[in-house]
């Protein structure tokens, strides 16, 4: 009896659509400030080491960076389409759009992986011997590059895992045109990850 009632009350609260979304937005603000702290660090060191940031940034692969930007932007498109589709009751479109999103997310990570690998092969990573010969500003640049893109990559990875979870829920009809808040909230998170990259791209690849 009691358990049933708790269940019932839980459901009653769960259906507070605006409430869930508000919780998600609040969570996004914390992410926003987390990366905000990193951006603060970046901007301080950038004002301090203008020239050296410039030299170091030139060694990053702008083409790969740009490709990754397009990949993430497109994944945001498919994500948004997936949410709209399920709300219109078009499960098939929603599933395939979500699938594409996951694919793009993985693609992003693969490209990132090769980018890091190339840099590490050149001995450009924190603690490497080669780093000690570089001017200090360049060392800091590479450290920032690894830490910030690493944190971002971690978020993409988590995002992909959550998206996979959503995909199964979607296929098992646990997410449907009546109850789509989980998918929508995941979407919000995914877009945030996209936004972070939108800033990272010029910050690291386009220093002139």
């Amino acid at each position, binding site marked *: 009896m*009691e358990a049933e009632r708790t269940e019932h009350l839980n459901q009653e609260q769960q259906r507070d659509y*605006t*409430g869930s979304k*508000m919780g998600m937005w*609040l969570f996004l603000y914390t992410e926003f400030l987390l990366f905000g702290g990193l951006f603060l660090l970046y901007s301080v060191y950038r004002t301090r080491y203008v020239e050296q940031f410039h030299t170091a940034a030139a060694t990053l692969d702008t083409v790969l960076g740009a490709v990754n930007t397009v990949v993430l932007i497109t994944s945001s498109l498919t994500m948004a389409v997936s949410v709209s589709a399920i709300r219109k009751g078009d499960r098939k479109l929603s599933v395939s759009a979500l699938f594409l999103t996951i694919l793009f997310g993985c693609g992003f990570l693969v490209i990132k992986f090769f980018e890091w690998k190339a840099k590490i092969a050149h001995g450009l990573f924190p603690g490497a011997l080669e780093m000690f010969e570089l001017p*200090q500003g360049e*060392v*800091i640049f590479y450290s920032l590059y690894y*830490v910030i893109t690493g944190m971002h990559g971690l978020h993409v990875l988590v995002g992909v895992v959550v998206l996979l979870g959503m995909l199964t829920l979607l296929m098992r009809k646990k997410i449907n045109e009546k109850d789509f808040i989980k998918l929508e909230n995941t979407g919000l998170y995914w877009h945030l990850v996209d936004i972070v990259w939108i800033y990272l791209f010029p910050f690291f690849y386009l220093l002139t």
Partner: protein
Amino acid sequence: MQTSFYVAHGRFRGIFSWILSTDHKRIGLLYLCSILSFFIVGVTLGLLMRLELFAPGRTIMDAQTYNALFSLHGIVMIFLFIIPAINASFGNFFLPLQIGARDVAFPRINLLSWYFYITAGILAISTLFAPGGPPDAGWTFYTPYSIITTTSVSLAAFAAFVVGFSSILTGLNFITTIHRLRAPGMTWFRMPLFVWSVYATSWVQILATPVLAIVMLLLIFERMFGVGFFDPAKGGDPLMFQHLFWIYSHPAVYVMILPAMGVISDIIPVFSRRTIFGYKAIAFSSMTIAGVGYVVWGHHMFASGMSETARWLFSFLTFIVAIPSGIKVFNWVATLYRGSIILGTPLLYSLSFIFLFSIGGLTGLMNAAVATNLHIHDTYFIVAHFHYVMFGGAGFAFFAALHYWYPKITGRLYDETTARVAWLIVFIGFNVLYFPMFILGWQGMPRRYFDYPLEFTNAHMISTIGSWILATGIVIMFVNLVLSAARGRNAGNNPWGGATLEWQVSSPPPAHNFEEIPQISKGPYDFN
């Protein structure tokens, strides 16, 4: 009478009915018990330190042990005791009751936050047994020392990182709850002031804690990979660590003190039988404190080599933050004026809160002036100041809340005489313990030393004796509360005659708080 939430155990039985419960009241009690346990750990460490300082030279421990003790004491007291003390325990228990809701907005996330908290606690304690020994860089983890020390600073920093998550989740839960789940008729200005303060606190938790999370992570990266952000040898800037650390840790002071102020604002009207004076002023000042609290962190860095511009700017801003706190104090005093005062234990703690917090706050203004700051920086003056604010302020408010809501939580009354005696001993002990520290600091006794020159002996000795008095008082208080839970008289629904909603339900409250969601038509301090 409806079955209380202790009886209605939900889906699970025994211990699982607690640690798997999503009932905000049970989670509140989980928090309360774990917070009290960490408080006892912290007090024990504090007593040991005071014992060492009883006489000059090595008394019971060597320098390294002392370093470990003040670091752990600080970490436990700040992150595991005082930050969640009122907000996570009483906030969880009473926020939904006070706004007429059945639970918080995300009950399962609420439970998750407790798991983060308890994990962090276990991690912090486990540094005692970790290879390298317990951390010795203080609770502030200042670089570059925290990078080079071989003690288990990384583990402690990770604990702070994890407890941050718990704090964030509590914050977003409470904000959503207050926005979405107020009972019909519960307008913003009919909310109890405790709810207002929890609301302001939650915003601080959301917008400041992530910065702590990232700076703790960076510290760990620094130790693991040598990324160099805070290491001058690699072109980093140790001051950036201090900036990021205090961007969180100053607002954290408001995470401690705002709920405390909320508790006081709830207790004073009840025990003086008068509606609160300046309701809106108090509510808005909570929000102002939360806001202004963001822009003053630099006052911790006056002696660090920060720019002159930043120094006067932060000094100026810090003076401003005193205004909203002052507004509150005046409103409380105005409420008491001509009230029919009942000197119950909760009020005694509240009054001592006002007294001790005012001392802490006014000495804070002394710290805020750059010139005096340079004189007292890193001395016992600071140690005295922050104990007055955090312990005399937030800690005493926590005790006040403990007594005020005790009948609601347990359904029984504590023994009033014993409680008053305990209060007197705690109050005396507190001042004997910490007041000499102001003098010591003014005379130049630096903080974080296990030894001192002979001329400081007397004051240190008095202070240590004070710590024993204080500890005795705390023991009496706790014993009284524990014994009364079994033997106390029946409390009835509303022993104090409070007008807020939690007093309208039975004590202890029923599992779902309200059989029917109440319709609110009057203010929280309307005693007619």
